[in-house]
């Protein structure tokens, strides 16, 4: 059995809050195991403890109790972060550096071998689709470009675990799709990717498995396919539908000891409409 990419055991994190220093529990007895080579979605509303959990995984915070391991190494150890790449939520990064300079800094911190560094940086920046803007200052970047350069700095050292915190928040749908494709490619390269988001459509597109957090507690965890499949339901698309068909259809279905539930015209998701229009405009 392979070593889990992440193993969280009985994790608790309390914060002192306000002038009275009362404790607020951000993560409440969390147990989670994330197997390697999958895209794992961490869902939950704002304040559900997603970001705190990520910070605990990365060793940026000390847990009140419990433990957290990355590929079998305690996340308290420096060595555990050697194999991790992280893209924070809404980053601004070093505004005065160019994209290349910033990725170079990240590479130098993570890699002791300096040979062919230029080539590695150039390839990584190309892979995230920032070739043209690589030598521009980061302060001139759009939101989507910031996310791309953030991803480049996260993957420059070829880590096996990549953690993305709200990677497409504020990014346009085309950018989000491009980003999703890059993430899928990373998965195909054997990486484990954790995406923390409250944008369900994004998770739905690419994740293999999701966990839902609320008030610091894990309330559900399952493979996305299993979540989506409810019993043995199937949707049937009927073209040129006439309302007179409802009763005979129900009669027909009764003979098979089954029923139809809601029959509505199928609605295209806004994201699909937007993308259709954009592609037809091209």
């Amino acid at each position, binding site marked *: 059995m392979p070593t889990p990419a992440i193993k969280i055991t009985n994790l608790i994190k309390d914060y002192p809050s306000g002038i*009275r220093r009362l*404790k607020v529990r951000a993560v409440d007895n969390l147990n989670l195991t994330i197997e390697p080579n999958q895209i794992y979605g961490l869902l939950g509303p704002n304040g559900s403890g997603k970001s705190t959990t990520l910070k605990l995984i990365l060793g940026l915070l000390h847990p009140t109790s419990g433990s957290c391991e990355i590929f079998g190494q305690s996340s308290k150890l420096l060595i555990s972060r050697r194999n991790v790449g992280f893209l924070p939520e809404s980053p601004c990064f070093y505004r005065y550096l160019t994209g290349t300079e910033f990725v170079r800094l990240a590479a130098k911190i993570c890699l002791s071998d300096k040979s062919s560094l230029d080539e590695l940086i150039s390839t990584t920046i190309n892979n995230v689709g920032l070739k043209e803007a690589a030598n521009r200052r980061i302060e001139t970047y759009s939101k989507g470009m910031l996310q791309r350069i953030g991803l480049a700095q996260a993957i420059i050292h070829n880590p096996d675990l990549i953690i993305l915190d709200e990677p497409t928040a504020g990014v346009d749908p085309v950018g989000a799709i491009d980003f999703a494709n890059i993430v899928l490619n990373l998965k195909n390269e054997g990486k484990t990717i954790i995406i923390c988001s409250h944008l369900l459509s994004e998770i739905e597109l690419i994740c293999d498995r999701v966990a839902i957090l609320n008030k610091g507690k894990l309330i559900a965890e399952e493979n996305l396919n299993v979540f989506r499949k409810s019993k043995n339901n199937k949707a049937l698309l009927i073209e040129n539908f006439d309302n007179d068909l409802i009763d005979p259809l129900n009669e027909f279905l009764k003979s098979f000891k089954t029923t139809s539930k809601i029959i509505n015209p199928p609605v295209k998701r806004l994201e699909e409409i937007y993308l259709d229009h954009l592609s037809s405009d091209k």
Partner: protein
Amino acid sequence: MNNSILYQYTKLNFNILILFFSLLILGIFIRPLERKIWLDLNSQGIDLSVKKTNQPLSTGLVVGMLGGLRNLVADIIWIKNSIYWEKSNLPATETFIYLTTDLVPESLYFWINGARIISYDMSNWRLKLIGRVENIPKLTKQSIWDEQAKDGIKFLEKALLFHPNEPLIYIEIASMYINRLDDKLMGAKYYRMASEKNGAPYYVSRIYPEILRQIGEKRKALIWYRNLYPKLPANNPLAHKDVVLQRINDLETELSIK
């Protein structure tokens, strides 16, 4: 228990206490080194203590608060003062002069220039207030000169508390006695005191006997010149050894001593 306010407060205060005692122990541990540095500074002629200034506590506090910045503040005040000086504003100029020397009593610049302003410039300003200088009676003129020169000398005497070995202050007092108070005897006395200090310009030791000569103390002047001559370096043009020799010869002729 863990969630109680008391527990949280205790925990917070405990952290502050740890920080407090850590810094206290560090301070105690490092004090001998600090004392050594302070002593080293004193032994190398840098006395950073403000104790000797004998200022009132309020001034002392300001001085201390400004720390190394008081020179800067004093300089800025001085620059501001020069604006009042140009406008011949006597009260403001006087206040600012005293403020600068209170702030930085170590600065010779403020003492000497302040005294010159008090003694020479301010007497002229006062005279101008009375009327056209040439129309003012000589007695009134002299009385104002006297008052201001005495103020200037008093100011410089205060400076001597901080700079007892500074020849430039003695020279300044001497010139005030001679130029304004017409007191050559006192002027000579201060020139002599100046010449006895380390770093005194060579010319001071020639001015003193010259004044003696002018007031009729030629024999005293000759003795002074004779004592001075062997001490002067031959290779320094500022020493004017030849001039001193010439004056010895002149005096010997005048006194018929050969």
